[in-house]
């Protein structure tokens, strides 16, 4: 299994559906469980970002998720037809702040950037496209 694709409305209730979809891909591709959490986190953070910030009044955007295993890396792409928004422009949080001064929030996208090898944003037609990739270990992570 080298490629899987699904599409859901951008609502919080879909998060377990997407997590399950990712887990299915992971086991179908026989990838190491130890590296699954980075992708679960990336998927949750980016999807919830679209849910929270990408839904102006009116129609609910659609979110399309694709997972590809190629060249020893997993590539996760999250695409939505909501208003143009590049989450990579968000300022990073101050990870050295002390407990009292530490503001709430701003962590999600930061964690994704830290945990993935590469993250890029493109506006494609009327869609936001966020592409994340990370090398995966193990004999099964063969070139796709």
């Amino acid at each position, binding site marked *: 299994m080298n490629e899987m694709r699904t599409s859901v409305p951008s609502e919080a209730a879909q*998060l*377990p559906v997407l997590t399950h979809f990712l887990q299915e891909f992971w086991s179908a591709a026989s990838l190491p469980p130890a590296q699954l959490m980075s992708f679960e986190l990336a998927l*949750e953070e980016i999807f919830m970002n679209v849910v929270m910030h990408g839904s102006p009044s009116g129609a609910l955007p659609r979110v399309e998720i694709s997972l590809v295993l190629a060249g020893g890396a997993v590539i996760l792409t999250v695409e939505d037809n909501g208003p143009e928004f590049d989450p990579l422009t968000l300022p990073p949080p*101050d990870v050295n702040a002390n407990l009292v001064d*530490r503001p*709430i929030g701003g962590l999600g996208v930061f*964690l994704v950037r830290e945990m993935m090898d590469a993250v890029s944003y493109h506006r494609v037609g009327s869609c936001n496209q966020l592409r994340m990739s990370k090398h995966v270990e193990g004999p099964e992570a063969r070139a796709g």
Partner: protein
Amino acid sequence: MKITFETHAGTTLMIPEGRLDFGAAPEFQRQIGKALAGVQAAPAGLVVDCTALDYVSSAGLRVFLLAAQSARRAGVAFALCALQPRVREVFDLSGFGRMMTVHADRATALAQAPEPLP
């Protein structure tokens, strides 16, 4: 997410099991708030034992931060212990591992927790 509580010599142990994601965060926040309110009556502390916590996202980190800040304001000892490696990584990347008291295991956390007044 299943959450159980134990009390050890005045210290409340909160033991969450499973995934602390966006969906689980509101209930976890409610429970941790209730636990903190409970220990505020006594000069003791709250320790969250993360042995069975398999996953945490920024939604979960947010709850830990709010709880730690609220404990600080109330003068209540607050600590975490026994983080799984993958959860530990999220804490370390976000700086939370340095900002909060995190013990290696439950025994260490309980040994460090303040004794209740006689």
